[in-house]
């Protein structure tokens, strides 16, 4: 199409007064070409889709594999080591799906919390004025993020947690936490009668604190008077419930794990698969989060700090009121994508058989039913939904907190 410029130029402006200009050939008309290109692309995509569909249908028929989502109501017939909702071998595949999904969410949420805490500590540490701390943080980030996540997981699972002693010689912490190769056992808190009151007190405390914070903010904007919101909220949310808890006779007992035969009974157990996946995910993602935090803080202009000092703010206030709010604007978008990565990376659980969505559903259920298309579709749809939801929230956040440019 090298020689097509002159007609294409005139094609767009078919003349108001120059009736003599000939209509360009159809092939050079930009609008016609756009429509043809799009129609062709669409035709290829539709043809490809149809081809895949017919092949899949005939292949499935030949292999005698049922199709459709009817299999979800059949009995699963396999056990799962960690279930957050009631589940037995008689449960259906749909329930197995739910168990897997909840396990994925559990490890993702706990991992996100741990990774954020560690990542912020390391990220701030790598900007510390203390040379030693700075070097430690830099070495941590460089090492951890250059080693594949799967290797982290294998290391914790096969090399560390497999080498702790068996249940009989468990490592003991504080007399009630036991670590052995079957997992980590904690005492489980059991709520007794009256504990609901304490929970209610906490809820009421939180509600009052929110109102208090709003009132304090309005008053500060009106009069400039600060109000110690943090202390007051702490007292309302923690102090009052604690006093209540003590005064009605401590309605909370603990179910301690005890060694019976070859294993522990009772208590809360954290299976080694969960623990190693959690450690690997948090340690690996923390390195990336630390980098985001570091670059976010560095992105705040030095003049901001100087201006804050010139106004007489203390270093702590400068950090809290000037630097962090501006740094967060830079940090939060990449931070969310790290959270999303962590959630997606939790699918590596399948390598050590932690019963997450991929391992339970795209692993065991797929092997039992052979319905690859439906199962992978559902699994991918879950992750896709999570990521679309996150990006919706992200877009909303970006609009809300974007710098108002003039």
């Amino acid at each position, binding site marked *: 199409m090298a020689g097509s410029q002159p007609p294409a130029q005139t094609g767009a402006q078919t003349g108001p007064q120059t009736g003599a200009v000939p209509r360009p050939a159809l092939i050079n008309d930009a609008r016609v070409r*756009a429509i043809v290109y799009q129609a062709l692309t669409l035709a290829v995509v539709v043809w490809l889709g149809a081809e895949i569909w017919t*092949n*899949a249908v005939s292949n499935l028929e030949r292999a005698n594999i049922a199709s459709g989502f009817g299999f979800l109501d059949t009995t699963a017939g396999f056990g799962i080591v960690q279930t957050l909702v009631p589940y037995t071998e008689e449960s259906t595949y749909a329930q197995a799906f739910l168990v897997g999904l909840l396990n994925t969410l559990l490890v993702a949420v706990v991992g996100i919390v741990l990774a954020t805490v560690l990542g912020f500590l390391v990220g701030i540490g790598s900007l510390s004025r203390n040379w*030693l701390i700075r070097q430690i943080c830099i070495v941590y980030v460089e090492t951890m993020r250059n080693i594949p996540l*799967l290797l982290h997981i294998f290391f914790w699972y096969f090399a560390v947690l497999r080498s702790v002693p068996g249940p009989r010689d468990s490592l003991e912490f504080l007399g009630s936490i036991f670590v052995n190769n079957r997992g980590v056992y904690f005492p489980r808190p059991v709520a007794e009668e009256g504990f609901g009151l304490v929970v209610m007190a906490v809820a009421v405390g939180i509600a009052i604190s929110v109102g208090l914070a709003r009132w304090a903010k309005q008053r500060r904007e009106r009069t400039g008077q600060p109000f110690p919101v943090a202390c007051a909220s702490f007292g309302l949310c923690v102090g009052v419930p604690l006093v209540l808890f003590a005064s009605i006779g401590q309605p909370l007992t603990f179910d301690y794990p005890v060694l019976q035969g070859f294993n522990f009974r009772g208590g809360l157990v954290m299976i080694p698969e969960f623990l190693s996946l959690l450690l690997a995910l948090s340690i690996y993602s923390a390195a990336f989060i630390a980098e985001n935090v570091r670059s976010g803080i560095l992105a705040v202009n030095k003049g901001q700090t100087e201006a804050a000092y010139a106004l007489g703010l203390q270093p702590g206030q400068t950090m809290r009121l000037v630097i962090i709010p501006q740094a967060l604007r830079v940090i939060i978008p990449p931070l969310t994508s790290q959270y999303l990565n962590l959630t997606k990376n939790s699918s590596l659980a399948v390598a050590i058989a932690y019963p997450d969505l991929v391992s339970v559903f795209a692993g065991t259920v797929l092997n039992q039913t052979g319905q*690859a298309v439906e199962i*992978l579709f559902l699994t991918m749809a879950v992750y*896709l939904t999570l990521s679309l939801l996150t990006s919706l929230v992200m877009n909303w956040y970006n609009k809300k907190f974007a710098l108002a440019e003039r």
Partner: protein
Amino acid sequence: MPTHASPLTFVRTQTVPVSPPPRPRRGVVGWVRENLFSSIGNTVLTVFGVYLIAVTVPPVLDWAVFSATWSGTGREACLREGAGACWPFIDAKMGQFIYGRYPLDERWRVDWTFFIGVAALVPLLIPSLPYKGWNAVFLLVPYPIIAFILLTGGVFGLPEVETSLWGGMLVTLVVAITGIVASLPLGVLLALGRRSHLPVIRMLCIGFIEIWRGVPLITVLFMASVMLPLFLPEGVTFDKLLRCLVAVALFSAAYMAEVVRGGLQAIPRGQYEGAQALGLTYWQTMLFIILPQALKIVIPGIVNNFIALFKDTTLVLIIGLFDLLGIIQLNFTDAEWSTPQTAVTGYVFAAMVYFVICSGMSQYSRYMERRLDTGHRND
């Protein structure tokens, strides 16, 4: 205007006593005081840091160096009481870690593929050397063909080597390099499509990119290993490694597209308008004006993508291919070398290999970023 001395007025009659000289800021002592003990908080942090180093470094060093076994021909050497790393295991299995089960007599083919690749790549990476264009063309067009012929064989009298025999570093590099080389043109096309004015093409590209970016790689690999065969007509099958390569290439193309899009967005509008004013067509504008500038900006992003992809190649072991990590793990089951330290030694070795490669690439990308920075960015 009162001129008399008010009781509040104070006039100093004596000079201020001389302040002591400031603490030295130079020299070892000054540096230590400035950087480690400048305040109480800082001192606490230093003590904490020293404690951290004291609990981590000596045991690791002891395990990896002082108590480690350095020579031996079997597990007996590593079974001592209190033995550390079992390095002879790595030494004995090195061939497998590099070539997998590639036939011994044919391993020279892997070596040659590697050397030709390195010989073509190194001049490309050193900025001062000429003929970059031809070099790149060689790497992108004839080299993959040469590599394919050398590695799989079956022609020119080379015996055929099935891909099920490939393993170790060979598979890791094949997956990573194919992934990145195939994903670059695909990613550029997708990025252009995403910014296209044609709604159908734009929607298709957005859909493609977001779907692949929204799902974990492991589900994509599962899809390649169990679902792709279903999509093909009866009788058409292709190799597991190839299916995995297709999946990795499509997956990383979606990420590449986003990187390239970032570069495209950074090109000022004037560049497009200037090209239009010169009468260039869309593809001419893109090829000669926009992409050369955009790709230059995103080189660090492309390298980061490559590092991520290189680390992600470990996932192929989940669908039963033996990459470096897979083959190391496979060798733990060898009774000849079964010792309590074998697994840890293998993992640490793998970690070191990945660390050296990934860290080297990121250092290089930082160097290129500084070098290519033409000062046009306004930050």
